[in-house]
Every structure is written in C-alpha cells, then in structure tokens.
C-alpha cells in the first residue's frame, strides 16, 4: 500500500491506483477529461497536471498516468501545474463554442465546470473556430461535433469497452472526428452510455433534449425494472414527466453503465393512455367507490363460482413490498389460488434458480468481470441481460475464455426477431457440445451463466463439482423475490392454477395475463400503471404508481435486494399552461391524474376493508431485514445470508 503526500495530506492507497485517484480519495479533485474510472488512463487531455515535488518522479506530470508510489510528494496547487491546466482549458476553448446557455449539456458539463474553475475568461486566440458536420446517429442520441474536446472517451467506451464497430475516430491533428462512416443509428446496445460518458455536449439524450436543466430535475437513486439484473439508475423527471434515465455507479452490479433498453424504453411512465384514475367498467370513479365495488365483485364471484375459483396474481415485475402482501389478500378473500408468476416455465425457472443460488455461490457482475473462464448455458445475454454481456466482455478482454454450450440440436436460443443474437455478442465464444467439455479445473475463477432451462440439474452438478460461481438470468426485476415468496406460501403459476383448479376469476396485481388465458377468465380487478391487455379486460382498474413514483425494493438475479426511491410525483405531465386558464384562477389540492397509489398501499387498504383489524406492517417475519435497506450502497445479498455469510 503506497503512502504519499498530496498537498500536505498523507494518503495511503491500494497498489495500482493513480495519483489522481489517490488525490480523489482525500477529497482533492484534480481536473480530468480523458481519464474515467471504467476506462482507465489515456493521457490525452493533459488537464490533470500536477507537480511532483519529491519522490521517484519529479516535475510536472499527468496524475492520471502516474501510479501512486511510496515517497511521492505531490502539489496540485503548484504555479506551473496550474498554468498548464489553465493552458489546456484555453486550448480546448479555442474551438469549443461559447454558447452554454443554448447547449443541452449546460449545467452538467465537465468542460464548463473546469473552464470556470480554472478562471479562463478572456479569449486571446483571434482565429476562427473549427466546425464539423454532425451526423444522424439514430432516434436516441444527438451528435454535435463542434463541442468535441477530443478526450477519446466515447470511442474508448464504444469500441474497447463495449465492442462496438460502427462508431469510431477518424482524421488526425485538428481534424479528429468521432462518428460513423455514414449517418445511421448506432448499432451497439450500449450506445446510450455515450451521453453519460461525454464530458461535454457532443452526445446528448435526444429524447430529453432541451426539456430541463440539471438543477430542474427531480432525481433519486433507482433500479432499472427492465430485466432481472437490477442495474442502478438515476431517473430524471420534471413537471411529472420522466425525461431520461442515467446510469448510477454500482461496482457490484452494473459498474458505471447501462444498456439502451434500460435507458430508452421508459416512455410507458408518461404514456397518455396510462390508467391514472380508478375505473369501474370504463367509468371513472372515486377510490372509495372502486374499492367498494371490488369487495362486492369478489363476493359475487364467491357466490357464483365459489371463492375457490378466484386467483390472486402477482408478477415478477411487482415490487417486493406489494408482492410480500399478496398472501394477505389471498387469505382474506379465501381465494383458491395465489400466484406470483403467470407463466409456468418462468415460475419453475425462478424457483430452481433461487433454490440453487442458496446453495451455490452466486456470481455478481463484478465476479463475472473478474472471471477467467465463463460458460454460457441456455441463455440469450443480449436479450435477457445486456449488461451481463458487457461484463462478460470485460472478462474476455482480460483474457478469459468464453465457452458457449450448444443445445442438443447444435443451435442456440433465438431471440424474438428470429435472429441468433449470439452472433452479436461483444466477445468471441468457443462452442462446445456439453458442459463436460469445458476445462473448469484449469480456471481459478470460473463462472457459469445460465438462462434457466432444462439443463438446470447438469449445471448445478457441474457448479457443485467445480466450484464455479453461478449467474442466472431471470424474467423480471423481482423474479428472485417472487420465487422466494412462492416457495414460502406454496404458490403455483397461474397457468398451472387454471389447469388444475379451474380458476374462473382473477385479481391481477401488475400481472400480464396472456391472451390465451384472458377469454377464459373474469378479470375482477387489475392493479396496474401500464395500459395492458389485462387492464383493458378488467372490470375494475385501480391505478398504481410506476417504480419511479414510489419507494420500493427489487431482488435481482443474484438475490441482491435493492431499494429504489421515489423520483417524481404521479400525475399527468404538465405540458405548459392552458391558455384559457391564464392566469389560473382556480386552485385545487388535487394533482390532475395524480390518484395513482403504490400497489402495496392499495393491497393494505383492500385487506383492511375485507375485515382485517390488525396493523399491517411492510416486511414482516423473515423479511424484516429489508426494512432498513438503503438505496445507496450495494444492497443486501440474500443468498449470502441463506448460506450463513455475513
């Protein structure tokens, strides 16, 4: 552990850290553009200059390029170092536009901050500014090359980190250009990270452009609901509209990045057709009326078909808070079935995965990145967990061997488009016929990634034999939690319940009843925030809040419970003033369209109305440990607790 002194502060850092990181660890920010924790050093921008006063290296040095060593004495405030940093800003500002007020990046721009911090105010350069032609890069990312400061972060991320090939750096000297050979949508499923990683406004989120400044946003730490990996995010909203989602750093899960699915497929939150008011048979009603009607309908079902014919159905997308209350509704209504999954396959898969991860060491995304041998079994990474493909790529870049186990027919899973998406994986794979063909014994940190199919027992046996860590892909953001609950309450999937128990009616809580089942069932009520087919078929619709509109918990694919916080108020987005109401003369405490309530809150209400006197607490019994979960940090790994690891 090297010990050094930076600006008179003694610092000790782990071996291999740079002087820049050492300074950061004691709160000294050395300006930097090209250096990025995930991408490492480049030495391109030269703005992190410091003076090495004593030690193995002397003089002006780039702190990002210099490994911290014993005996180093560093000054970040040395006059020459400051002169260099100031000069770098002047150089960069020679060609950067002076139009921050009309730039979408303004206010969240690293170049803007450092330009102001360095005191560069007067322009000495009297020549013209360099200009470029921008490209169309698809519907999500705006390209403004004139703003570029050539830090090479974008291309280092896109090509090196993410394995993209359709975007790169062209030209030389003062004509460096980052783009595609021709206009066209960026092909990488991780392209959206260019928005986060660009230190200035070359790449901005087209879907949120010019909608708000950084300080206008409602933001909170959140978790992505689009697959089972639980990537950490920061959704940004304004005026009750979710504008964009950016990645939140969590080295145990997603690192610094996010896939495009997680970033760009959130428009359902703002959808005009979203249910925002309680409905009875399509008629807008007050909550009181809707809940009373629900009780009545449940009773009618009981009279008509018997309470046994009712099923309470949750889903893998439902927050742990609501999911853990479903059994109360089941008990109080006397319903015949309690289902946490609709699909039998998904229920089976989640059950086996949770069971085996309680026995077998689960691999976090950090473990996958550090692996030296990875076996892919029955999984479609780019479809079911793109960020895991990115993690595998990092292992592959470090020299890990990646083996893909083909199924009996010698083929691999095909995605929804009928394409074999393994062809697009951002790493090279060796195809093998069976797990047995993979030399696990030679590996120090082997990992098996399993999509959860027929080969479960084979995978379990091999993992147990070889000590390989196991990473499994599940269906939804809370599949793991739902499977634990299903086991606790002996629940079965709706598909099985319909087949076995002659279910005639359902109360759906954020579940998607498949089209083949819908005609067979009476959807008594649906609690949901999306305008799904189940919502359309329901007699009573109770609007819930989306994940960004409430606090909640998901348990991800490795059994990691993660808390997400309320980002924004539910309600119709404010789209400017209504001219006929200007100036507004009527005031109401009600938020238009703001009647959505968290699903768990509605469940508590219904259970009380069904006659429960008791005070219902969230996370009772074994789930108490989720109560104090913090939205920051690494969450709580339940599988470790199961196996007695603290």
């Amino acid at each position: 552990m090297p010990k050094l002194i930076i600006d008179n502060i003694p610092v000790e850092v782990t071996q291999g850290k740079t002087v820049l990181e050492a300074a950061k660890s004691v709160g000294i920010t050395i300006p930097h553009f090209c250096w990025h924790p995930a991408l490492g050093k480049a030495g391109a921008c030269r703005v992190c200059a410091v003076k090495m006063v004593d030690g193995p290296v002397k003089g002006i040095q780039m702190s990002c390029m210099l490994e911290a060593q014993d005996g180093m004495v560093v000054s970040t405030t040395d006059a020459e170092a400051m002169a260099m940093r100031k000069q770098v800003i002047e150089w960069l500002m020679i060609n950067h536009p002076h139009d921050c007020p009309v730039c979408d990046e303004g206010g969240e721009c690293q170049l803007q901050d450092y330009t102001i911090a360095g005191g560069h105010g007067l322009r000495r350069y009297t020549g013209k500014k360099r200009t470029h032609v921008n490209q169309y890069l698809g519907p999500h990312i705006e390209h403004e090359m004139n703003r570029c400061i050539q830090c090479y972060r974008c291309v280092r991320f896109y090509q090196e980190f993410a394995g993209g090939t359709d975007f790169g750096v062209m030209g030389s000297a003062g004509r460096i250009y980052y783009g595609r050979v021709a206009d066209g949508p960026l092909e990488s499923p991780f392209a959206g990270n260019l928005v986060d990683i660009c230190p200035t406004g070359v790449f901005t989120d087209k879907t949120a452009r010019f909608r708000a400044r950084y300080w206008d946003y409602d933001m909170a730490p959140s978790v992505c609901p689009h697959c089972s990996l639980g990537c950490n995010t920061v959704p940004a909203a304004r005026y009750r509209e979710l504008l964009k989602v950016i990645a939140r750093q969590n080295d145990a899960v997603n690192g610094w990045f996010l896939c495009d699915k997680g970033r760009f497929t959130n428009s359902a939150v703002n959808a005009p057709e979203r249910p925002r008011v309680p409905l009875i048979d399509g008629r807008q009603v007050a909550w009181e009326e809707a809940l009373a009607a629900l009780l009545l309908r449940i009773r009618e079902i009981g009279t008509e078909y018997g309470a046994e014919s009712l099923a309470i159905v949750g889903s893998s997308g439902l927050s742990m808070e609501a999911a853990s209350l479903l059994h109360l509704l089941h008990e109080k209504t006397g319903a015949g079935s309690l289902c946490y999954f609709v699909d039998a396959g998904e229920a089976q898969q989640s059950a086996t995965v949770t069971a085996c991860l309680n026995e077998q060491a689960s691999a976090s995304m950090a473990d996958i990145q550090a692996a030296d041998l990875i076996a892919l079994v029955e999984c479609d990474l780019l479809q079911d967990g793109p960020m895991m493909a990115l993690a595998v790529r990092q292992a592959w870049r470090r020299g890990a061997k990646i083996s893909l186990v083909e199924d009996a027919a010698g083929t691999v899973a095909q995605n929804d488009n009928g394409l074999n998406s393994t062809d697009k994986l951002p790493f090279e794979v060796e195809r093998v016929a069976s797990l047995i063909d993979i030399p696990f014994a030679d590996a120090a940190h082997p990992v098996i990634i399993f999509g959860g199919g027929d080969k479960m027992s084979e995978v379990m046996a091999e993992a147990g034999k070889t000590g390989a860590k196991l990473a499994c892909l599940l269906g939804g953001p809370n599949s793991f939690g739902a499977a634990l609950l299903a086991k606790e309450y002996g629940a079965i999937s709706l598909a099985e319940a319909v087949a076995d128990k002659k279910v005639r009616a359902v109360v759906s809580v954020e579940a998607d009843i498949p089209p083949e089942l819908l005609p067979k069932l009476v959807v008594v009520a649906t609690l949901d925030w999306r305008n799904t087919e189940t919502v359309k078929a329901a007699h009573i619709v109770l609007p819930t809040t989306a994940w960004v509109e409430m606090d909640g918990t998901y348990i991800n694919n490795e059994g990691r419970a993660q808390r997400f916080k309320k980002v924004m108020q539910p309600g119709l987005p404010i789209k400017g003033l209504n001219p006929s109401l200007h100036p507004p003369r009527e005031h109401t405490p009600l938020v238009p369209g703001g009647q959505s309530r968290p699903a768990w809150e509605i469940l508590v209400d219904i259970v009380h109305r069904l006659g429960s006197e008791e005070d219902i607490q969230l996370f009772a019994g074994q789930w108490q440990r989720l109560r104090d979960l913090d939205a920051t940090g690494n969450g709580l790994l339940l599988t470790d607790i199961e196996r007695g690891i603290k």
Partner: protein
Amino acid sequence: MKLVPMRRMGTRCNVIMEQPLFQHNKPGRCVTFAEYRDEGGFAALQKALKELSPKQVEQAVSDSGLRGRGGAGFPTGRKWSFVPRDLPGPRWLICNCDEMEPGTYKDRVLLEANPYSLLEGIVLASYAIGVRHAFIFIRRGYETATANLQRGITECLAAGLLGENILGSGFSCTIDVHSSAGRYICGEETALMNALEGKRANPRAKPPFPAVKGLWGGPTVVNNAESLANVPGIISKGPAWFKALARTPEAAGMKLFCISGHVVNRSCFELPLGMELGEIIEGPCGGMRPGSRFKACLPGGASTPYFSAEHWQVPMDFDPVAKAGSRLGTGGIVIFDQDTCLVAATLNLVRFYARESCGWCTPCREGLPYVVHVLETIEAGKGSREHIAILQDHIKLLNYAFCALAPGAMGPVQGLLNNFMDELEEHIDKQRCPFKARE
C-alpha cells in the same frame, strides 16, 4: 545580427575518408548483390554467425559508441541490452525507415544506392537480440528504396543469407517490408508499432517501454535504418575502427548529413561526427551560394532549434550540439541566408507539425495550430508583445504533451526566440515583415 566572415576550412575536408555506408555506392544506380558481396559485403554476417555469440555482437555495438541515427541519439547497444531475453514469446526488431522530417532524406539516399548494408545489419541485430522476424517500416513515398529492399530480400533468401538456418548456423530470421500509410507520427516508435499492428498511429504511453512490451506486447527494438546499416562495419572491422572514424574522441563513427538550403552543394554526405558546422558548409557543401551569407541553420532536421552564425564552430556531434542549445537530430542541416525571414520559415515548419499531429493529446492538437496562428499574425504585421508571451508559454508547456512531436515542433520556435528575437520584435515594431517589400 552577427555574421562571421567566411573562412576556408577546406584542407581537412580533403582528407580521404572511409565511408562505411557509401563505400559500395555506384554512380547513378543501385549496387548489385554480387558487387556488394564481392566488395566484402556479408563478411560481417559470416563472421558473427560463425565466430561470435549474440552477446558479443551486442557488446561490439556497445563498444563502438554507435548512437541512434534517427534523432534521439540513444546508444544502440544499450537499447539492445534492455530487451529481456527470458520472456516467453517472440521478440521483434523494427527498422524505422519512416523518414518524414523536413530536411532529412538520408535513408532514401542510403537505400536507393544500397539496400544490402541495412539488410545485413538487420540480420546481425536480430542475431544479437534473438529476433526471428524483423520488419522494415518504410515511408510510402520511398518506392525505389522499397523495391531495392524487396529485391535485396529475395536475393539474400536465395543466397541463404536470410530465412531458415542462415549460413548453416542454425539461426533463422525473416524480414518483412511494410510500406507506411504515410504520416509523420508513424516515425514515433510506439505510434509505428500501433500502425504496424493495424491500429491508429497514436503513440503509446511509456512505460512500458518497447524493449519490454512493444509490438503485439512482445519485447521490441526499434532502430533507425542508418543505425542498423552501420552494424556490419562495426562487426567486420571492429568497434575501435568505427569509433575512430569520428573527428573528435567523444564522437563515434560517420554520420549521414543531408544538406539543403542556400549552399552550393545540396546533397547527402557521409562525414565524420564531430566536424564543425562551418567546416561542413565550407567543405562538402562548397560554401554558401553566390551572394548568400550564412544567417542560420537547422542543425539536425526540422525539429531542432536554429543555430546562428555564432555556432559556426560547434562540432556536429550529439553532445556538443545539445550543449549549444540545439540537437543533432537526424543530421538534416537546412541552411538559410541573410534574405530568409525566419518568422516565415518557422511558421512553415510549425504548419507541418500542426498538420502531422496525430490528434491524440490536447497540447499538440490545439497548441500547435495556436502557435501557427500567432506566427501568422506576427508575419502578417499584426503581432503584439503579447504574442511573444504566448509563444513563450507554448515553448514551456508543449513539453507536457504526450509524445515528443510537440516539443520537437517547438524547437525552431525556441531557436527563433533565443537567437533571433530582434527579428521577431522587428516584425512587431514595424507591423510588417521586414523581408517583404513594402506594399
């Protein structure tokens, strides 16, 4: 401005010199394989493979005092000694023949006349370092030299001087000629390796140094063509002979000096290191052109600070030139007479470097065009004292660029400010270029 009177230094120049590189040259054509062999060529290779161990070859080159001819002047033998011999995997040798410095054309002259010294030198170096595969990275424009090398390789292969089991010694070595895509930065050794690997020709961070982790991650030696071409002479005639070729005891060997500018004979001469600047101009160069008086020169190519008349007696060797505030560089001497505007000349040079920057780091990519702009402003008669301050800032701060291109580019600017400040100030005070007729 000081101008020394012309002096005749001719006598010493008339001494007949041994010319290890040019000895085989034939007028108007390339030497043939048979001629080179019959004139004693490949003797060094035979001797080394039969009598000397690799270590002994390296030692001979170290003892000879041979310093890299590509510009930096790093001792060639020491460079070889840095290569770890115990690492698994191949080691590589690259001959840097990507000669693009304005004013430097020695490798072209050398290889258009004789590719065999270089090929022999490469095999010797490969033997010393334990390289099985060497590359010649050559400037695209050097078509004749490339053809000569390729023909030479074919002939050497046929004669068993290259390829498998050379001369029955058990040592095998192949040479590939790679035509560069053609950027100045490709001459920077780490950028060269990136280019050879098919990547963008951006320099790499050092450490790790190429000797430890270079081409495809393997230990790599990058030597200039002229350096390698000198190796056969050192091996066949001994390090002491080579060292004694120089004019001064501190210097070692002969050097190719490429002359351009306002002198009578503009050509590439093989001369002893340590000859005084004036001696070279008065002797082989045949003096200044009629009507021209010596004002300044770039002593070692376009990236070296100007010498003025006060440097007339500086011995042209690495250390004395460095002591006098410039660099011997590649030995490309560009001579300017009294009618040359050095602001315009400097501008012309910096323009080249600004254009040839790879664009990786900010100081080079943005700083050099800034310097160009400032010099343009001064040359256009719109300069101010602040511009001199900006130039001084750049001379200092461009040292902190990623590689040596930007500091090198500032060489002439530094020379301008050090030796010709009065000329620069005259541009600013008169608000015009004093060398241009008043409009």
